[in-house]
């Protein structure tokens, strides 16, 4: 793909604001996303889980009477209208016998420290436009044990961009030691792209700190600073379908036309929505190594009839990142069960090798149960083996044999006449429509998964598939079974 095409696929800040955020996210909807309490209320109506609220502190008076003894061992303090994760304090555990709590960084916060922090929240230090704010004291989400092994202390969260009720792109943010257990990319968290159709992670990025630019990413393979670093590509995110469903539901409930949904996986509750975002960032494109713009434009104007319809559209349109990344990691090509293959004519029509006149594009069926590939008689004669077929059928070979042994005996005694035509390499004994038959084998020049090669094919009379690719040709390929003929 050319560079300029690639550039056109990327969504920039200007277009995000002008074509998506401003026209699609009305002020009333933005107000919901910018207000965590309101978000919780609206999502509760749709039975979407959010972290449980322990206490709300609305005024300094309430803060004076805040009963620290009643607070649990671990909780989170958040500004109701905070932006970008600012002002969020996670308290991990309580110090024994004291009214003091421990932060993931090891720092200890006493009741006085907490009071001061909440005061700052109330004063609007973390809210948009420094407006007065409310402090939320809520449940600390306990990380799903599977994802826990990839993150340092904090909770990984999954961001999904939704548009027109279709999940468009997804990524996971993993807290690191450097980010102090927060999922904030600017403080050093890792972001990992997720294939929408399968929920499998693809590329992983990490913000470079030495660069002068604020948004410069570096591609990484595994976690950076855990005791035991793990490979980041190819992780299956648990609850994937449920996560997509929640993302679409959140979009419906909030009426945000262009939305970023942040979901965490709780060890007990499963997917829990952290936050809705009316101006989701564009860094997700880097994590997925793909542009948002063309995806958004593909989905534009499609009438989505139900939640499942939205998910289906997303899976059909935006799957496939995994294939590329598997190829990059394993060096193996991925072929689908029905793969598009180019068959070249035996004698080229045009002198130029790559002229489309010289070949035919065929949907083939990949069958690991077969050894040698097969080609339908009609197709074989069309691509230039007409004479060979004519010759073979002019021989009076019995229509069927009782056993393979009998077939082999026939071949042995008539060897020279059967392979009398130069195009026929040999003959093969195959089972077709329940009978054992002898069929000619030819060499066909093909291009599978962007690789050119000669394939031995048995000419059959079976018309179910034009071409079936067998095991002989599949060495070194990975077969993706998720795409079928439907």
């Amino acid at each position, binding site marked *: 793909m050319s560079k300029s095409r*690639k550039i056109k696929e990327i969504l920039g800040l200007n277009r995000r604001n002008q074509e998506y955020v401003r026209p699609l996210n009305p002020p009333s909807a933005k107000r919901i996303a910018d207000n965590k309490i309101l978000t919780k209320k609206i999502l509760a109506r749709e039975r979407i889980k959010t972290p449980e609220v322990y206490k709300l502190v609305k005024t300094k008076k309430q803060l004076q009477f805040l009963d620290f003894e009643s607070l649990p061992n671990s909780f989170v303090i958040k500004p109701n209208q905070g932006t970008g994760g600012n002002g969020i304090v996670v308290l991990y555990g309580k110090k024994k016998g004291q009214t003091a709590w421990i932060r993931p960084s090891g720092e200890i916060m006493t009741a006085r420290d907490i009071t001061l922090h909440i005061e700052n929240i109330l004063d609007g230090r973390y809210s948009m436009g420094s407006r007065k704010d409310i402090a939320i004291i809520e449940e600390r989400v306990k990380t799903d044990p599977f994802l826990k092994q990839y993150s340092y202390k904090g909770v990984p969260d999954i961001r999904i961009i939704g548009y027109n009720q279709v999940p468009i792109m997804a990524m996971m943010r993993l807290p690191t030691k450097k980010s102090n257990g927060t999922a904030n990319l600017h403080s050093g968290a890792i972001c990992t792209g997720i294939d929408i159709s399968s929920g499998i992670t693809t590329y992983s990025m990490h913000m470079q700190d030495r660069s002068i630019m604020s*948004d410069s990413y570096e591609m990484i393979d595994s976690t950076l600073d855990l005791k035991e670093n793990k490979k980041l590509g190819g992780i299956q995110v648990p609850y994937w379908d449920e996560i997509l469903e929640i993302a679409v539901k959140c979009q419906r409930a909030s009426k945000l036309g262009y939305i970023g949904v942040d979901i965490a996986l709780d060890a007990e509750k499963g997917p829990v929505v952290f936050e809705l975002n009316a101006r989701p960032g564009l860094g997700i494109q880097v994590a997925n190594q793909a542009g948002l713009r063309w995806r958004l434009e593909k989905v534009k104007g499609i009438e989505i009839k139900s939640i499942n319809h939205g998910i289906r559209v997303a899976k059909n349109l935006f799957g496939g990142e995994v294939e590329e990344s598997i190829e990059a990691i394993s060096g193996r090509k991925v072929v689908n069960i029905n793969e598009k293959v180019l068959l070249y004519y035996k004698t080229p029509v045009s002198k130029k090798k790559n002229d489309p006149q010289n070949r035919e594009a065929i949907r083939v069926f990949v069958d690991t149960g077969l050894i040698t590939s097969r080609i339908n008689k009609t197709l074989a004669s069309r691509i230039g083996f007409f004479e060979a077929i004519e010759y073979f059928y002019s021989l009076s070979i019995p229509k069927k044999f009782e056993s393979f042994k009998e077939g082999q005996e026939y071949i042995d005694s008539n060897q020279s006449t059967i392979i009398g035509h130069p195009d026929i390499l040999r003959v093969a004994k195959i089972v077709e429509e329940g009978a054992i038959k002898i069929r000619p084998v030819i060499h066909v020049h093909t291009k599978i998964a962007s690789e050119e090669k000669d394939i031995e094919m048995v000419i059959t009379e079976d018309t179910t598939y034009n071409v079936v690719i067998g095991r002989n040709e599949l060495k070194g390929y990975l077969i993706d079974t998720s795409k079928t003929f439907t």
Partner: protein
Amino acid sequence: MDYTPFTKWVLDNGIAERTLELLVGIAIIATIVSLARYLVGSKSFGIYVPIILAVAYTYTGLRYGLIITAVVIASSLLSFLILSRIRMHYISRMAINYCLTIMSLIVFFVVVKKYNLGLPNMSLIQPLAIISIIALSDFFAKQQIKKGFKTTMLVLGSTIIIASLGWFLITREAVSAFMVNNLWLIPALIVVNILIGQFSGLRFKDLLRFRTIIQEKENVKK
């Protein structure tokens, strides 16, 4: 200087020449800020700060202006460092920041005079220009609390670059004479800004940010 009839009319009807030059300059700098934001993607402390800095620099001269800016920023950073250890209210923190800035500036001016560091005497400079530069510390400190050190320094850098660019344009005799003589250019700047305002393409910074996506696939093709 020869003016067009319209400019002459404006000047004869209560606007001083210097004032008119500055007013036109403000319109130009405002447009530069908008260009920088939406075409380049470099953020500044709003539109007001670059304008006020550029205008202040026309009074102080660029070199002196930049040095005062550096002193203001350094003292803001210092106060931030000292005060970060003490928990205190926001406005009080800002007030201390101002006090420290003023103290550093006084010391600075005395040092300049005493050791004759080759800078023009302070008494020649409009106090208001210096005050305008001091106001920068307010924006700087606020940003620092909200967005952290690195982002703030980046924004500060681009603010100063835009302001210097603005200073350069409005102090060119030819530019200001041309603008004053062609006041219709101000509505033309509106048209320019309407165009920038409609621009939905990638900013220069977007291109840098997403360069891995643009390059990556090309490599695969090979």
